[in-house]
């Protein structure tokens, strides 16, 4: 197998009085992996994301991006290659700015923001109409609407598009459909899967929905008490079912 894009080596993260929320974790992420992440509350899923994104300091271990240890790099500097969609629809977009303005902002991820005109041209709007159309929730008709006036589903779809506007080396999906109603949630999951597969994105997706975890992605991991208790891919993943997974939750 080729070299991993990201490599977590013996990563430990502690809170308070030496409580280990990630415990000596070892985990490689390869190019093109679409990994679903399962685990009970407190298993360390969000901690894993915050550690990779740089919002949490690690107590010990090495976090490699290709050959470089990025464990001490700031969260903002890691956004050059890591993008994220949050669970809360309010967190991923600027509410008083329009859909088009939000997309423009996201387009500059990893680039210098200078005194150049932002360039919100007719061509740009036409391009945005195209890319928002694929989400199938009328986002394309609301490009000039402040995102604060969108529905939760539209905002999450926008957050997703913003995160993938500049192709990231790693996309972190933090239960990004959990706050939505079942129908909207399923619609966004389908769109997510389509985009991730079509654009060969490397993604980690936290979910509490067992069916989604089994259905999507080429790899599945289960976290329990800060450790990875199951890591399966391809045919092994396809062979899994609900009851087998639930066993790992008990462990």
């Amino acid at each position, binding site marked *: 197998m080729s070299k991993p894009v990201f490599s977590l080596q013996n990563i430990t993260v502690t809170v308070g009085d030496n409580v280990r929320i990630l415990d000596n974790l070892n985990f490689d992420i390869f190019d093109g992996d679409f990994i679903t992440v399962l685990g009970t509350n407190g298993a360390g899923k969000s901690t894993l994301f915050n550690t990779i994104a740089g919002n949490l300091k690690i107590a010990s271990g090495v976090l490699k991006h290709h050959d470089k240890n990025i464990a001490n790099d700031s969260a903002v500097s890691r*956004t050059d290659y890591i993008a994220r969609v949050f669970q809360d629809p309010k967190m*991923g977009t600027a509410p008083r700015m329009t859909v088009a303005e939000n997309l423009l*902002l996201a387009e500059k*991820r990893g680039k210098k923001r*200078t005194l150049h005109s*932002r360039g919100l041209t007719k061509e740009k709007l036409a391009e945005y109409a195209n890319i928002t159309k694929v989400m199938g929730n009328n986002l394309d008709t609301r490009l000039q609407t402040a995102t604060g006036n969108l529905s939760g589903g539209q905002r999450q779809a926008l957050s997703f598009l913003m995160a993938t506007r500049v192709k990231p080396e790693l996309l972190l999906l933090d239960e990004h459909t959990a706050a939505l109603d079942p129908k909207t949630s399923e619609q966004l999951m389908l769109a997510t899967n389509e985009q991730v597969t079509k654009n060969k994105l490397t993604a980690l997706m936290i979910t509490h929905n067992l069916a989604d975890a089994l259905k999507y992605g080429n790899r599945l991991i289960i976290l329990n008490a800060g450790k990875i208790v199951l890591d399966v891919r391809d045919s092994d993943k396809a062979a899994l079912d609900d009851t087998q997974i639930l066993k790992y939750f008990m462990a």
Partner: protein
Amino acid sequence: MSMIVSSIGQGLLWAVLGVALFLTFRILDFPDMTVEGSFPLGAATTVAMIAHGINPYLATIAAFLVGAGAGLITGLLYTKGRIPILLAGILVMTAALSINLRIMGSANISLLNQKSIFSANFLQHLPKYFDAVFVGFIIITIITLALIFFLQTDLGQAFIATGDNATMAQSIGIKTDRMTIMGLMLSNGLIAFGGAVIAQNNGYADINMGIGIIVIALASIIIGEVVFGELSLNERLVAVIVGSILYRLVLLAVLQLGFSTNDLNLISAIVLAIAMMLPRLRHALKLDSLIKKGVAPHE
């Protein structure tokens, strides 16, 4: 009539403060008390420099730089020192009092018989108070156009996003601390610049001239919003300028009622409080339907 011209001139000159405060109060979404220090700081710097024989235009630009310095300190205290923004502003405002006394050497310096940006030959030939209208109009037009340009750049959009949703801004690589510091520097630089211009228009700088400044600047923002309602960002900047002029006209009307200039701070506060409560009052007292009923023809 001349009082109205004077009010319009004052409104245009003071509009600089409203537009500058808009950057922090509305875009970054916090009240920046530093302005009560940077306003007299700009005035003191410029008047002291002019008194030492320095070119008034240079001295006015210097005020911007000194004000930006004050904003930088507030920004560092807030972002790096983790001091709450209100307190960070109050600290710098308080410190500026001593700095201003150092700069001026006394509590008050006059520009009597000194040149200022209002001394240009053609301004002297304008009718009374029209010099302030002319200078104020030129200055606020340039500043507003520059801000409109800035806010539509990639940097300006990153600045707006920082105030709108810092978490999201960081997640797409915007260095929000830097944006906050930049906003505070720009805002306070403009406030100090406004202080420099107003001091030259008044003909003196005074240690107490910063008191109540934030209320005056807020009043122009809020009045503009109450009068015009929903607007685009660019239009909102223009609304602040109109708000500033309206505020001066309200003051003029109140003074005509027999109040003295000593009452100005009280009146400013009352005007602002009413303007801020107006949307609520309008709803609670059903003023809109009342007015509509009043003008609708009887059936």
